């Protein structure tokens, strides 16, 4: 009558189609942040929302409050929001951030080396990387309706990592 299924056996039921090949490893990098270097390799085991932004890009700015919420909401479940800034001059970033204290990590890539590695085609572009370090989603632009879609995809990967 009743059934008791283990988490492990159920994890395989997830075969949600993703635009990126599930086997593609996210290129590793190491970038400076205000609190020292951060590398993608060090975030293995976490789901990473990797966002590329610049202070002069309007939709990037619009995504900031949302990324802040996202980080706060899913921190306990193992999400790391890593926003890579691509401004060439530090003064613009400071001006933009001002009094804002985002709850997520901001890394600096003024020469766009990591952006190049990830073959960005527009701004903002974000990638969702699963707990195994695989690139699972790429998303270009940021519009209001993207919020829910992105968050659901993130949630899905968080679920994959176990309850």
């Amino acid at each position, binding site marked *: 009558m009743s059934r008791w299924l283990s988490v492990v056996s159920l994890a395989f039921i997830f075969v949600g189609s993703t635009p990126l090949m599930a086997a593609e490893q996210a290129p590793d990098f190491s970038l400076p942040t205000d609190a020292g270097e951060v590398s993608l390799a060090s975030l293995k085991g976490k789901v990473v929302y990797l966002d590329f932004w610049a202070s002069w890009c309007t939709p990037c700015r619009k995504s900031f409050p949302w990324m802040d919420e996202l980080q706060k909401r899913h921190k306990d479940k193992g999400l790391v929001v890593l926003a890579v800034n691509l401004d060439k001059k530090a003064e*613009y970033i400071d001006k933009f951030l001002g009094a804002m204290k985002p709850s997520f990590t901001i890394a600096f890539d003024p020469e766009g080396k990591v952006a190049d590695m990830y073959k960005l085609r527009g701004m903002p572009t974000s990638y969702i990387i699963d707990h195994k370090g695989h690139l699972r989603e790429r998303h270009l632009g940021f519009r209001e309706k993207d919020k829910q879609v992105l968050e659901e995809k993130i949630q899905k990967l968080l679920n994959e990592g176990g309850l």
Partner: protein
Amino acid sequence: MMLKVAPSVIFLALIFFLTACSIEPVKPWDRDLLAEDKMQLVPDALEETLDAHIYFSKESSFGGAGIGGGGCGCN
């Protein structure tokens, strides 16, 4: 009529396509300067509108920069 236009057209086409040959793909993160207000094709739309109105009322030529805008009895 096309023959009459020819010198100017050729001149413009030359400028455009010669520079077009030197197009460098600008990476998305290198478009900071292009994003500045002062780099817009029309940095001050109000001034552009007022100027278009003045010159329309004093000269025989009009248009080119864009479409739209109302007429007036000034010409």
